[in-house]
């Protein structure tokens, strides 16, 4: 079973040289820590920055320089600033190669729910609906089951949707799963996790085809 950093590490292997990538808040943010040195990627932050760098040192903190999670950050050589309309032109116009974000539920058709729980306070969708409606490739980073032990991989989402038929891949603490026209397809299992455990933790239709390899993290 993987911890949050393990999930981030596995997702980092999906990033190809030359990609422009938008990372959501939470586990997706950790992915930046595991991108191999020989892979050159440019991180997009939807509040208006391409070429996001690491957190600043104490003496570099700048109130005008934040990411979409409102954290202080830095720029890298070759970065650029722009307004929110241009930022979402990059996203909607499919110029961003990969979006990695968290989810509360994903359906076997690739629908995603991650912005609203009825009865609880609604904080808003931020940029999530624009991102999932337009990204060429979307990977979801999340826990396989919720705190009550119920599967988050469902035949249909119960929660209000953020987007439809958009997720291509899910990485959880248990497995790597692709979304195919026939439902979830098990691609890899986390170290020490059995196929039976993954089947039992997945409520939607799960295709298990032949031997399922264990993830290679290093």
């Amino acid at each position, binding site marked *: 079973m993987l911890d949050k950093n393990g999930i981030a590490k596995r997702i980092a292997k999906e990033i190809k040289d030359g990609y422009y990538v938008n990372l959501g808040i939470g586990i997706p943010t950790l992915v930046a820590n595991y991108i191999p040195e020989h892979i050159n990627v440019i991180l997009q*932050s*939807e*509040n*208006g*920055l391409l070429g996001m760098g*690491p*957190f*600043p*040192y*104490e003496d570099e*903190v*700048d*109130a*005008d*320089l*934040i*990411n*979409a*999670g*409102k*954290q*202080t*950050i830095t*720029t890298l050589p070759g970065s650029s*600033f*722009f*307004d*929110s*309309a241009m*930022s*979402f032109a990059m*996203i*909607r116009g499919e110029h961003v190669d990969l979006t990695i974000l968290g989810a509360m539920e994903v359906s076997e058709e690739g*629908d995603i729910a991650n912005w609203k729980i009825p009865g609880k*306070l*609604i*904080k*808003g*969708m*931020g*940029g*999530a*609906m*624009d991102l999932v*409606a*337009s990204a060429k490739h979307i990977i979801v980073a999340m826990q396989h089951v919720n705190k009550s032990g119920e599967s988050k991989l469902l035949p249909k989402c119960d929660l*209000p*949707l*953020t*987007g*439809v*038929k958009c997720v291509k891949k899910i990485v959880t603490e248990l497995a790597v799963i692709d979304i195919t026209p026939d439902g979830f397809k098990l691609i890899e299992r986390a170290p020490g996790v059995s196929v039976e455990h993954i089947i039992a933790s997945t409520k939607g239709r799960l295709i298990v085809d032949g031997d399922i390899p264990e993830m290679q993290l290093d």
Partner: protein
Amino acid sequence: MINKTVKNAELAINGIQDGMTLMLGGFGLCGIPENCIDELVKAGIKGLTCISNNAGVDDFGLGLLLKNHQIKKMISSYVGENEEFERQLLSGELEVDLIPQGTLAERLRAGGAGIPAFFTPAGYGTEIQQGKEVREFNGKMYLLESWLKADYAIVKAWKGDALGNLIYRETARNFNPMMAMAGKITIAEVEELVPVGSLDPDQIHTPGIFIQRIFQGVNYEKRIEQKTVRKRV
């Protein structure tokens, strides 16, 4: 020569009345018009509809107007950092219209650019779709979204001149340029008001045509919402 300079925030917000619709620039607390917000609090103007990506925090930014019960309705994409907001929303004192962030940015741009509506894929198949025209283009589904306009837009820039030309700094640009275009009257507050001719025309982000009033703000706090640092090794 044209001179759009006003002396201070008090004079800049002159004419804003109860019940008006305002746009306020910023993302979180980054790039917000601090001086004008303080002045709106002092003036006690009520029943405002505020279009802004976020709603500030409890004791800063738009949170100050909320605390003072001056806002009737918020139009935003994300409002999660404010407990007073939560309280007023749950008690029914406050209305809120949540809009996907890219749709909000483009609706503002459209308002300033004279484009009454446009199609976007954001929100298709979700509850955002309710009541909206849906159309297919090249096999993909899109929602019709309309422009946003406001009685007053209030933006914050880094540098500006008496003609209203503006330059923003880093990610403090965010929603400010589109809002500057979409206000019937646009007020710009800047950290530094510089002589006309000293800004490089090639570097101007918002051309002065969109601005009606400009002033140099004072005492910028520029509060940081999430200070994150790394340690030197």
